[in-house]
């Protein structure tokens, strides 16, 4: 029986379930909430079984259409893809539980099909190993994400969505240009084949510049983050959560994949240094901006800009430090997804509760919304990187790697970054406890909206406690050994 369950094609179900769910919720829009919850539950179950079979049997490889790459497209899942899929399912569940009470009937009708299509797109992307297939998946995710941003239905939401759309389309075109050159230079679209074929020629580096540029724009690495704060701060709360937690991780994931298997082995360290510098810039700039904000939602959005910086610091540290820094990336990406989605959901609760998100006018939130407050505090612990949380493990690995390599500049940036994030988190929390000078009415928050935020925040903490098992999953298929070393 167990053997039978393990042989079922869970990876493929990860793509087909949400697609089917999206279609049903489109046709039968009144039942969106129920269809959405059922679908996301199926996705979670599929991920669990896929994880189980990968842990038992090593990496997953499936030739679509029976045509092996490079002619066809291969599905491929190693430890890194698996962690990303788990991240998508967990955050997806949290956001879905929240969304059933958040949206009006009219909004809900539009939200569910697009949101389920985003989940399908993300799963497809994390399972793919083909650079053109990535492009199609990126477009799918990007267009759906923009449409959901506009669901905010305010002046700011439409302007934010428009800016976001232009940025994401530019990013896709740059990426596609790079794909074209890489294909004509080395004769394949399949990552594994490319990694065998590539040589350090002008075509290789120009295509990296184009693809990398496009992906950095989509990931919103400083100074290409201009589109992120307006979009992430004006979208409806569950959409902000999924944008910050999942969407930007998808382009970042492609960047890691391409770097590790195609470009990294031939690099001479220049790219890593640039990424490290930009990452440092992102941490400082994003944190300062976050500290300056008076509106909570913008503060959380700028905090995302800063947290993206950490992901890129790891690029620089992995140059000679190897897998410690890469493990740091996984923990930072995963814990940020959980903690940041929790934070955006908290902001959604506060906006509904008091009708505003002005930090200084928060009115005795801690007493009146204890669960929401706890969620924010726990998420904050992970964002700052306080001990035992998932964020702590990530930052600890980074620090260790920086110390081992005696990269003192990065050590200072890391410490300063944590200090700044502690400053902006505590600035918010202190206002949770005080009465506002202008007391205001409050609305009741449905329990599932409070608990969804708390559970996501709790998961960010638990990630730290279960770090060793996460590490053993990440290691499957040794995604972080550069292709050259594997041979």
């Amino acid at each position, binding site marked *: 029986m167990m053997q039978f369950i393990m042989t079922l*094609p869970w990876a*493929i179900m990860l793509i*087909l379930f949400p*697609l*089917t769910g999206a*279609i049903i919720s*489109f*046709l039968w829009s009144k039942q969106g909430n129920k269809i959405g919850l059922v679908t996301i539950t199926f996705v979670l179950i599929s991920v669990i079984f896929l994880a189980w079979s990968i842990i038992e049997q090593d990496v997953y490889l*499936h*030739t*679509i*259409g*029976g*045509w092996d790459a*490079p*002619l*066809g*497209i291969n*599905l491929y899942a190693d430890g890194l893809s698996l962690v990303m899929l788990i991240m998508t399912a967990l955050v997806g569940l949290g956001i879905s539980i929240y969304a059933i009470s958040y949206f009006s009937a009219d909004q809900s009708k*539009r939200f569910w*099909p*697009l949101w389920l*299509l985003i989940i*399908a*797109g993300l799963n*497809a992307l994390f399972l793919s190993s083909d650079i*053109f*297939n990535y492009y*199609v*998946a990126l*477009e*799918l995710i990007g*267009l*759906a994400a*923009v*449409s*959901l941003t*506009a*669901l905010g239905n305010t002046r700011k939401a439409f302007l934010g969505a428009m800016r976001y759309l232009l940025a994401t389309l530019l990013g896709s075109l740059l990426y596609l*240009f790079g794909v074209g*050159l890489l*294909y*004509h*230079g*080395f*004769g*394949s*679209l399949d990552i594994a084949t490319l990694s065998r*074929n590539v040589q350090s*020629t*002008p*075509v290789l*580096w*120009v*295509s990296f*510049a*184009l693809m990398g540029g496009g992906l950095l724009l989509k990931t919103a690495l400083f100074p290409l983050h201009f589109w992120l704060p307006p979009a992430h701060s004006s979208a409806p709360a569950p959409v902000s959560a999924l944008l910050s937690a999942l969407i930007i991780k998808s382009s970042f994931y492609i960047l890691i994949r391409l770097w590790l298997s195609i470009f990294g082995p031939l690099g001479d360290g220049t790219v890593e240094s640039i990424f490290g510098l930009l990452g440092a810039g992102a941490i400082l700039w994003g944190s300062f901006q976050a500290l300056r904000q008076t509106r909570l939602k913008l503060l959380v959005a700028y905090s995302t800009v800063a947290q993206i910086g950490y992901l890129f610091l790891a690029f620089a540290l992995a140059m000679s430090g190897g897998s410690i820094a890469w493990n740091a990336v996984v923990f930072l990406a995963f814990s940020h997804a959980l903690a940041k989605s929790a934070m955006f959901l908290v902001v959604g609760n506060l906006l509904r509760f008091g009708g505003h998100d002005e930090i200084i006018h928060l009115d005795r939130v801690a007493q009146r919304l204890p669960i929401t407050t706890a969620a924010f505090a726990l998420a904050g612990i992970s964002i700052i990187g306080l001990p035992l949380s998932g964020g702590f493990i990530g930052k600890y690995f980074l620090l260790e790697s920086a110390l081992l390599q005696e990269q003192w500049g990065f050590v200072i940036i890391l410490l300063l970054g944590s200090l700044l994030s502690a400053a902006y988190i505590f600035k918010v929390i202190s206002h949770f406890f005080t009465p506002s000078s202008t007391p205001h009415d409050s609305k009741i928050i449905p329990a599932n909206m409070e608990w969804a935020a708390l559970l996501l925040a709790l998961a960010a903490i638990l990630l730290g406690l279960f770090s060793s098992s996460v590490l053993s999953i990440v290691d499957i298929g040794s995604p972080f050994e550069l292709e050259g070393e594997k041979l």
Partner: protein
Amino acid sequence: MIANKNKSEDKIIRLLLIMLLTLIASMVAYAVLSLPESATNLQRLVDNNIDISGVSNPVTAVLLNFRVYDTFLEMVVLLVALLGVWSIKEVPIESMNDLKNPVLDTLVDLLVPFSLLVSIYLLWVGAHAPGGAFQAGSVFGAGLVLLMLSGRQPFLNFKGLPLHFALIISVTLFISISIYSMFATGELLKYPLSQASSIIFILEGMATVSIGLTLSLLFYGIYTKKKYK
């Protein structure tokens, strides 16, 4: 960008931008020119396998067999775009556009059946000559757009659930064939050899319907009168 605060400052920024883009463009151009004249691509692999792909037009073989998974996701992208347009703007299928023009009318009377004919022809020849679902679908869509431009309402008698079904028919068929292929061959979207050409033909036919309807409805979303809420 910085708006008309300072004209000369604006000019300098533009100049810098032009210099930067020219620099990048020349690097890209250099890389393009450095490609060898002999090709490195997948053409030989396509040629070697085309006999067992079910069609003889190599582009159709790539789109509907070797890389059919891309086309599957592509159909989803079209659906996403339409859902996005509908979510941003309420599109009233019922509203009439009063754009009657007798000259255009006669033209449309001729052109629309013609586009339908071309579309079916393209679909038919796609298996062995240039053509196929994307081309047929876009010609079909263009015909529907012409119909709307002449003030006709192709969706007036065909809306609600039937229309929704028509829009998702392609993605639904892809999902069904995915499931079928998993049972029949154990591999996603792998067609049993004997059924390959008929499966490809059905997929193309449904894709044509979905592409044509989706593209024309995307147009309709912009063209139709806006409704203030």
